[in-house]
């Protein structure tokens, strides 16, 4: 039975408190650490053995001392109170109300670590989810139940994009309820305020749940933030039958917190000092997306991570890419040119797109026109490189048309998705359009 309070603290090391002479503590058990002045902080058991328990304190160990600190083992794991009432609410990184309102009246208390989805019960994702961002909807379509990360870089417009998706996203052609769970992990205060205001002003807050862990909140809290967010998302999806889009930004801060704990535990570091289990740990977050057979709702994830030095081979994007189903990559060159959203389509991919588009979902020509634009944009990049060497005057007429396609794609691809894709390919002569069936060319081609 839980509830025993221990007062023999052997050591305080970074975010960890080592409690001595502990009996019957359980792995992951919730711990209330009480300071000498009565302040209570939450933590969880990371390791037990030899009469000792290693407790990770979410709110940091600043101000704790070995004498006078008590650790109360609560006898249960960390749980998040859930009900439909959480919609429209703003919580901190540990799931406590941050909007001045009381705790939600809970229908249930759910373990924040979630229950692994039975692979046999998983349903293959194939329904379109509209983000309202043309380049994503047109070229790397998001599908309900998919996990599609956005790889960004420091200072780029990923937060703007995240807020835009949260405001605009919807499920098309169904009356099913839709909700957005937004978890801001280690973001600046101004960014957190921007997310909150953006959702409030667009009226989207009432179908959203916000979890805000700001940069000055304890780093260790960041380990919990995506988990409480996903717990709420799973409840809304699988208990209440809603389609839930979860946006997690910035997962790099999550991985940094993981590294901090790993270093404090003196674990053997892996690449760039991240723990060797980074892949496994990330998968416990990302794999909480999906659809279940016989259940109405779905959890779709758009984790956002900023790549240190724009390095896509950095362990965080690298390992994320192994787990998720594609990626949306923001390009520094496009960002510098002032293109919004600066998505580099040549490096981006939605692996489940093919199943979520076409007749009955979006439009019958979607796949082909998207492929044609991808092909033309790729040629445009080659032609641009060539122009850098031989100059524009040295290019053929068709090369110049491809350059025009590249410019138009970057500058105009922000409104009605498929029509714009056609406007772009229609700059090429019909003879260059090789990836689209003749009947679609006859129907939609806009060139002379």
């Amino acid at each position, binding site marked *: 039975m839980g509830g025993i309070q221990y*007062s*023999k603290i052997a050591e305080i090391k970074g975010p960890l408190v080592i409690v001595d*002479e502990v009996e019957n503590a359980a792995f992951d058990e919730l711990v209330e650490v009480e300071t000498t002045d009565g302040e209570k902080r939450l933590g969880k058991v990371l390791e037990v053995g030899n009469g000792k328990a290693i407790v990770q304190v979410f709110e940091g160990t600043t101000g704790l001392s070995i004498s006078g600190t008590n650790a109360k083992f609560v006898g249960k794991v960390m749980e998040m109170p859930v009900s439909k009432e959480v919609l429209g609410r703003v919580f901190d990184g540990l799931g406590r109300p941050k909007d001045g309102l009381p705790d939600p009246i809970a229908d249930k208390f759910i373990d924040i670590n979630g229950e692994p989805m039975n692979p046999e019960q998983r349903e293959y994702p194939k329904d379109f989810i509209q983000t309202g961002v043309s380049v994503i909807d047109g070229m790397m379509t998001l599908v309900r139940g998919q996990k599609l990360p956005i790889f960004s870089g420091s200072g780029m417009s990923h937060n703007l994009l995240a807020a835009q998706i949260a405001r605009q996203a919807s499920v098309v052609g169904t009356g099913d309820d839709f909700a957005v769970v937004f978890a801001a992990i280690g973001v600046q205060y101004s960014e957190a305020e921007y997310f909150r205001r953006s959702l409030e002003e667009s*009226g*989207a807050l009432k179908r959203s749940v916000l979890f805000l862990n700001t940069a000055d909140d304890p780093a260790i809290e960041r380990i919990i933030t995506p988990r409480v967010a996903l717990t709420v998302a799973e409840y809304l999806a699988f208990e209440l039958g809603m389609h839930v889009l979860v946006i997690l930004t910035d997962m790099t801060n999550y991985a940094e917190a993981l590294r901090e704990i790993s270093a404090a535990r003196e674990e053997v570091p892996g690449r760039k000092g991240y723990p060797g289990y980074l892949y496994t740990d990330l998968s416990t977050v990302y794999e909480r997306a999906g659809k279940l057979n016989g259940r109405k709702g779905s959890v779709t994830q758009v984790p956002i991570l900023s790549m240190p030095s724009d390095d896509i081979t950095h362990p965080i994007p690298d390992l994320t890419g192994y787990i998720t189903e594609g990626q949306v990559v923001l390009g520094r060159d496009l960002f510098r040119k002032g293109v919004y959203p600066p998505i580099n389509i040549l490096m981006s991919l939605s692996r489940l797109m093919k199943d979520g588009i076409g007749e009955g979902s979006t439009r019958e020509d979607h796949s082909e026109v998207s492929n044609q634009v991808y092909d033309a944009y790729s040629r445009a990049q080659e032609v641009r490189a060539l122009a850098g060497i031989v100059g524009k005057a040295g290019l053929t007429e068709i090369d110049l048309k491809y350059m025009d396609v590249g410019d138009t794609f970057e500058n105009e691809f922000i409104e009605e998705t498929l029509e714009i894709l056609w406007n772009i390919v229609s700059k090429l002569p019909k003879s260059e359009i090789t990836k689209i069936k003749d009947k679609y060319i006859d129907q939609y081609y806009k060139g002379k």
Partner: protein
Amino acid sequence: MAPNPELEQAIDTVISKTEDSLLSELAGSGEECKKTLDASVAGLELEYDRILADGRKEADKIEKQLVGGADLAARNKELMALEDAVNRVFADALAKIAAEDHSALMGSLLDEATKTLGTTEVVVSTNKKSRDMVKSALSKFPGAQMSKENIECLGGIIAKSKDGSMAFDNTIDARIGRIKPLIRKEIASKFGVGI
């Protein structure tokens, strides 16, 4: 001055030619204006439609914003009122519990605490009112002793191991604190919420 028919004819010719040229230019300009106007009609209509569509979009946005904001504000007030009511129920319940006699409960609270700590070698604290009740119940727990100081609580006990390394709070306050989040829903349902 005598009339000069040749000069007059020449003047008439010039006037007539100028008139023809002006008329044809006017006709051409008229036609050009008409063409320009005709051509701009489509553009204007498009622009008109675009402005209307933008206006509608903006109106929809503002409507959504107002309705969403009002919905949330109403819901938040309801939550605050409900929380207030739930807290009043708890306060009333606590006042009733405080007034009750807990002597029958002390034995089981002590038993639970010593079992949880795994020893009867404990120092037990309670409030002033329950001190005698706890003292009489202690005889069943060998090694257990009463703390010299009283604690502030509604009832119940806190048991501490003699070396001070472990403690178990089995006061009524702590027990209520543990179950409060679980029973809030039931209390709220009495007010017709969440049924």
